[in-house]
Every structure is written in structure tokens, then in C-alpha cells.
């Protein structure tokens, strides 16, 4: 039990090693955005320092400043007692600062060994010593305990394996300070364990590790200290032994869960869509019904088959077996076009790749699904085009100077509102939201959730896919859990505990995670 006095004045943070890197008033401004407000923080050698915070809290900005990818606006970075400019990535690497990014930034078409030595090739008289490099790379990989061949093309490995190679690559470069940016997002548990072993070993060698993750259980498993960022401000730093989940979450979002998840309950009406024993690429034998006025949540890990299931409903992929019933009549959905005609709308997972035409205006994006309606056979009504776009911008409170501004100029949250907003005028009955709040700040999240309520009140049904359990848990009237392409459990609103749902989604990972969530 923590006493009040301790809460107000946390015990002085343990300092295991000497200070290797110190931030003094480090600050970053973009035009119109204060991405990082002055931060003071010291990192010790040989510590694993976790940084947590919501999307948009300033974590990526901090990494970019530390790795020299972007210049800071003001403040000082002190490296081993000396002020460092860190103006270029090259300078950061020369000092021994490296980063392993969530998305692997290596050359997929080169071999593992070539990637390990990229930029520092071993050559004699200008001739690459390819065999020697493969041998050395293999030694390093074996030494780290990864069961991977060094001579294969990197692109032939899984994303998780590539991630391990990226980590291995960083370790051989005289790294003293290594940043991991959500490294486990695409890893299996086994790969994650290998990575954690590597991280602990580096720590033992005195390397400072910055570990950025959304996964609380990993933070508690690995880190010595944890710093919390919120809206570009460093809220605080804690020793891991002296904090807990609830405290960190409270520091991260600064508001209670009830304020964010505004849930309205409606009496479900008639069935809008029903899947009967539907199978397709990535999922099999899934049955579920979505009725008017209800949110059906699909929870599971990335790759559990949720997105594949909904894109099949939406006609993007072919079903291999089973039936789709729309308003109790069997239908064939052979294309997105068919789905839209029935009254489905899909806000896809990736805004950039699937949701938006970034280099086209906001108004264009909002009107894209309804151009057919706002034009006669030949011409588009420009008045309608304007009024429709302006109405959505006003209704959704999309922050844009005009409807003519390019979609790329808006923040992530506002872009997401466009992805959702373009379907509102279309008059769809079934809305499919695939990870609608990724990269969106809390305020916008709350707005998006309120929008769900508005859609339900008009008699629409919603399928909500999320990898973030609290989101589906607090919003879904019916919650389906997916694991490896199968629907493994179904719960009513708040009918199961977080732990049970997680267990069902993870199954074999259960023992590792133990009550950390």
C-alpha cells in the first residue's frame, strides 16, 4: 500500500550507473505544433529506460531528436559530459546512438549479412569480402542465440525475424545507446523473448536501452525506470518497482476511462448483416450477426483474422465457404462496389495506405463515395459538392482551413475524421471501423466514440475492430474474440473480465503475461 506522502513525493529515483546522456530543456516545435515541450531527463548507462505515452505524446519526436533525424528547436543534449549537436544521423551513430524502428528500415533485397554490414562493408582492394562477411554475420547471429541464416535475402524472413536482424545490426556497431521503438509490434512471443534476452544482455554490457512500447506488460517485464510523456510534456519518471499499471495509465491520459468512453446503449433492432460459417483467406468458420443499434467488437492480435474477415464481408476478398445474409436475404458480395451498394461502409486500418487520397483536398476525400449521387449522368453539381463537404467538416469538427486544403496537411486525428466522415453522407447502414483510433489523441478519440453513438441512434450497426482491449471492452455490446483465424469466444457488454478476454486472445501466451494487465 502506498501512503499519500509517498504519492506526493516519490522516492528519489535509483541511479545504477553514471549519466551517459542528458537532456536539458530539449524542445521541438513544428509549424503550428509544439511537439515536445522542454524536457529535462538523464539516462544512465546500463539501464533499460521505458518511455510510454499515447500516440502523439511526443515519443517519436524525442527519438528523432536523439538520432539526429531532425534538428531540435532549443535546449541541450549532453553526451558523456559534452554538449552534442546531433544534427545528422551520421553524428548520432558516430557517438554510438542507434535506433531499431518499428518498421524495419533495411534493404529487403539484400542478404542478411549485407544488411548487417551495410555502410561498413568489409572489402579488400575495393573487392567485397562477401564470404567473410557472411561468416562474421553468422557468428554474431549465433552468438545472440537467434536461429537465423546469414546468407538468405532479408525479405525472405518474417517481419519479426527482420526486426531481430535490425536489433543485431545495431549491436555490432559500437552502440552505447540503443533505442527500440515498439519493437514487438510484429513479433511472435518466441521472437519477443529472443529480443528481450538480447536487450538484457546489452544492458549487462553497459548499453543504455530506451524502450518505447504501448504494451505495459513489456514495460514491467523489462524496464528499470519508466518515463511518461503526455501531449509533448514529460509528466514524470518512476522506478519500475515503485509504480503500477494504474498510475502509469493515469499519468498517460490524465482522465478517467469513463470520460473517454462515452457509451450509449440502444435496444438492438433487426439484423443488418449475418455471417454464417464464413471462411476465407486468413479466417475460417466465423458466424456472427450485427443488428441495428449495436456495436459488435472484434478483438484479437494483429494477424488473428479480424481484418481479413471484415474485408471479405466488404467484398475485397473472396469467401471460400459460408454465407453472407444482408437483412435476412443471402447476398453475393463480389466487390467493394457491391458492398457499398448494399449499404456497407469501411473505414480501413491504415489511413495512409487505404483510407485517404493524401495529396487531394479534404473536400474531395469527403465526397469520393458520393460523387455518383451528387452528379447527374454527366456533371457534378459543384454547389452540392461544396455544401456536402462543408457540412461534414462542420459536423465532425474537422480542423482544416478550408475544404480545399490537402488531406496531408491535417493531423492524424483530423485525417481519421475524414476517413469516417466520408461515409456519413453516404447513408450506410453498416459501418466497419478497423482500428479507428490508432494514432489519434484522446480528445479526438472521445469525439469518434460520440460519433458512434450518433450513428447507432440513427439505426446503423457498427463493427469495431481494435487491438486495444479497453476500447472494444468499453464500447462493444457484443464482443467477439479472434485467435488465429477463428472466432474463439463471444461475450456480452462487460460480461467477461479483461483477463479472460486476453487469455482467450493469446492462449499460449497467458503464463508469460501473468496478471500484468
Amino acid at each position, binding site marked *: 500500500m502506498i501512503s499519500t506522502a509517498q504519492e506526493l513525493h516519490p522516492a528519489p529515483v535509483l541511479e545504477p550507473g553514471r549519466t551517459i546522456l542528458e537532456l536539458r530543456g530539449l524542445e521541438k516545435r513544428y509549424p503550428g505544433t509544439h511537439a515536445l515541450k522542454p524536457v529535462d531527463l538523464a539516462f544512465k548507462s546500463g539501464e533499460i529506460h521505458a518511455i510510454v505515452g499515447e500516440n502523439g505524446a511526443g515519443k517519436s519526436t524525442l527519438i528523432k531528436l536523439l538520432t539526429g533525424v531532425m534538428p531540435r528547436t532549443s535546449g541541450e543534449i549532453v553526451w558523456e559530459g559534452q554538449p552534442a549537436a546531433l544534427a545528422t544521423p551520421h553524428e548520432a551513430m558516430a557517438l554510438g546512438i542507434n535506433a531499431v524502428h518499428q518498421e524495419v528500415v533495411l534493404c529487403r533485397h539484400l542478404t542478411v549479412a549485407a544488411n548487417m554490414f551495410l555502410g561498413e562493408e568489409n572489402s579488400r582492394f575495393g573487392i567485397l569480402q562477401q564470404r567473410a562477411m557472411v561468416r562474421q554475420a553468422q557468428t554474431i547471429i549465433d552468438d545472440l542465440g537467434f536461429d537465423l541464416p546469414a546468407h538468405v535475402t532479408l525479405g525472405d524472413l518474417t517481419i519479426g525475424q527482420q526486426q531481430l536482424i535490425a536489433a543485431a545490426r545495431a549491436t555490432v556497431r559500437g552502440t552505447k545507446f540503443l533505442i527500440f521503438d515498439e519493437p514487438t509490434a510484429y513479433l511472435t512471443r518466441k521472437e519477443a523473448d529472443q529480443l528481450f534476452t538480447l536487450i538484457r544482455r546489452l544492458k549487462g554490457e553497459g548499453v543504455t536501452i530506451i524502450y518505447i512500447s504501448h504494451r505495459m506488460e513489456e514495460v514491467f517485464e523489462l524496464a528499470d525506470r519508466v518515463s511518461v510523456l503526455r501531449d509533448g510534456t514529460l509528466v514524470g519518471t518512476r522506478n519500475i518497482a515503485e509504480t503500477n499499471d494504474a498510475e502509469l495509465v493515469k499519468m498517460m491520459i490524465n482522465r478517467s476511462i469513463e470520460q473517454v468512453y462515452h457509451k450509449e446503449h440502444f435496444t438492438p433492432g433487426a439484423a443488418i448483416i449475418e455471417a454464417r460459417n464464413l471462411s476465407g483467406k486468413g479466417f475460417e468458420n466465423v458466424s456472427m450477426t450485427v443488428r441495428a443499434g449495436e456495436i459488435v467488437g472484434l478483438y484479437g492480435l494483429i494477424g488473428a483474422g479480424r481484418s481479413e474477415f471484415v474485408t471479405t464481408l466488404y467484398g*475485397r476478398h473472396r469467401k471460400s465457404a459460408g454465407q453472407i445474409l444482408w437483412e435476412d436475404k443471402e447476398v453475393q458480395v463480389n466487390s467493394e*462496389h457491391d458492398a457499398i*451498394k448494399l449499404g456497407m461502409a469501411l473505414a480501413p486500418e491504415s489511413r495512409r495506405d487505404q483510407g485517404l487520397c493524401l495529396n487531394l483536398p479534404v473536400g474531395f476525400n469527403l*465526397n469520393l*463515395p458520393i460523387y455518383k449521387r451528387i452528379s447527374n449522368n454527366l456533371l457534378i453539381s459543384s454547389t452540392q459538392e461544396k455544401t456536402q463537404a462543408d457540412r461534414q467538416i462542420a459536423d465532425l469538427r474537422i480542423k482544416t482551413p478550408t475544404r480545399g486544403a490537402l488531406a496531408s496537411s491535417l493531423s492524424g486525428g483530423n485525417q481519421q475524421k475524414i476517413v469516417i466522415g466520408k461515409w456519413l453522407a453516404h447513408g450506410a447502414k453498416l459501418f466497419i471501423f478497423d482500428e479507428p483510433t490508432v494514432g489519434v489523441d484522446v480528445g479526438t478519440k472521445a469525439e469518434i466514440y460520440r460519433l458512434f453513438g450518433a450513428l447507432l441512434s440513427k439505426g446503423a450497426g457498427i463493427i469495431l475492430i481494435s487491438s486495444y482491449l479497453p476500447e472494444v471492452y468499453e464500447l462493444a455490446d457484443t464482443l467477439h474474440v479472434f485467435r488465429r483465424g477463428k472466432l474463439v469466444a463471444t461475450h456480452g457488454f462487460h460480461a467477461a473480465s479483461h483477463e479472460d478476454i486476453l487469455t482467450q486472445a493469446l492462449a499460449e501466451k497467458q503464463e508469460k503475461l501473468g496478471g500484468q494487465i
Partner: protein
Amino acid sequence: MSTEAIAVEKPKRNYNVLFGLTLLALLVLLWILLSVATTSFASANNIANLLRQGSMIAIMAVGQTFVIITGGIDLSVGAVVGFATVVVAMMINAGFPIWLAILVTLLVGVAIGMFHGFGIVKMGLPPFIITLATLTSLRGIGLLMTNGNSININSDTFTAFSRNSFIGIPNLFWMVILVGIPAYIFLHHSRWGRYLFSVGSNAEASRLSGVNVQRTIYMAYTLSGLCAAFVGVLLAARIGIGNPTQAEGWELQAIASSVIGGTSLFGAVGSVHGPLLGAFILATINNGANLLNVNSFWQRIITGALIIIIVYFDGLRRRGK
């Protein structure tokens, strides 16, 4: 990033108009300079000649622009022009009525465009490759059909058309207007035009928004093939022969006109008036260089330099400088 803090960017709604006016100013400036520098530039004869020269590239550039807006490229248009001169010449000489000969030639252009669409959509070939393949094969097919000879067209009615004028303006230039106005309405005021832009910007997002991406791609290449075949008819009328090796390198001129006219080779940016102005700027440079007795080799160099300068400044603007 928080919602309060959007990086506000000035709207660029009027940019298209402004860019068009800049091009127009450049064109007028060239004309004034050449009128002063040479005695013959401002003559009615030369202006008519210039309009005829520019018209054909301009029409090709419009079709090309549709394709480039979708993020593709059509390298075949020059070869289509050459091939079309052969088709129309053979049909007229075989005694078919002129209207039928023209119609069939245009349909051949449509068929070639459809084939490109098929190659890209169904076979998954890159536009660069499939249209490059057509470029070389069409020239070959044309040479086979003609045995390598030119076909003299034996219809004066047909050839007279391109020499004549209507209310003082060459017929060929009227054809630019005939193509330009529907093209403008199509691109900027119809939903199919919108779909060209959306596919060029993000095909996946468009597909998920209910846009028929495949049909849009078919449409772009078909229109480009149609424009090129139409230019082939005009060229056959102008020179009075059918010859598959005609219009060598015109595809590059069409692409250059389009790019000078503000079309982005990355797709999703372009207009109809831009390429038209671009084509006449190129024609003016060539015409002026001839009158000034500039070595014709220089014309190519100037065209190249102009492309680099305009695209560079356009890139600066887009990056918000």
C-alpha cells in the same frame, strides 16, 4: 499531435488558375519577343503554321495527361499516330467512305488503349512496359502492312481539310477546341474525372470508397489511344500519306507538354488547359528557333532545359517554399 495544433497550410485552390495564367503569360511573352525579333513571326501564314504544328501535340498531350493523372504513362502514342495514318490511308485508298475510315481508325485507337488497360489491370504489367512494347510492335505491324512504303492518299477532300481554315483559324486548331472542351468538362466536372485523380492519388483508398479502379484505368488509356488515333487522322490529312514511321518521338513531346503544363508524373495533379498551353509553348519555341535560324538541335536542348526548370519550380512550390 494534438487536435489544437494542426500544421495549417494555405489553401491552394487558386493555384491551378494561377499556374495556367503564368503559362499563358509565358506564351504571350514568347510571341511578343519573337514578333519583335523576327519579321516573319507575326505573319498570318506563320501563325497558322504554328497553330497547326502545336495542335496535334496538344491533342495527344490531353490524352496523355489523363493517363499521367492516374499515375501511369503512355509511351505508345507516337507509334499509335503513325499506325493510325496507315490505317486511315489504306481504308481511304481501298474506297471506303472517309467517315468510315476515320471511325475505324478511331476505334483502332480505342482498341489499343483497351489493350493497355488489359495489360496493366489483368496482366499486372507496369504501364511503362506495356506501352513501350506497343510502341515498338505497332511500328513493326505498320511496316509489315505497308511493306515499308508510304501510302499516298488519293482523296483531296480528306487532305484539304487540314489545309483549310474556318473563320480565319486553321481547322486543325478547331480540332483542339473540339477535343479540349469535352476533355475539360470530363476531367473537372464529371465524376469519372474525379476518379482519375483519386486512383492516381491512392488506388486502394479509391477502391474501398467504391470507385471502380480497373474501369478508371481502362478509361484513361482508352482515351489516350483515342486522342492519338485522332491525331493520326489529322496528320494523315495534313501530309497526305500514311506512313508507320511518322510521329517519331511525339510521345516525348506529348509528355513534355503535359509536364510543362503542370501535370505531376507522380499522379493526381493535372489539368486540361495546362498541357494545351504546354504544347503551344513547345511549338512556339520550335517555330521561333527555326525563324531565328537557331540550329534545330538546340530546340531539343531548350525543350529539355524548360522541362527541368518548370518541374523544379513546381516541386519547390509543392514543398511549400
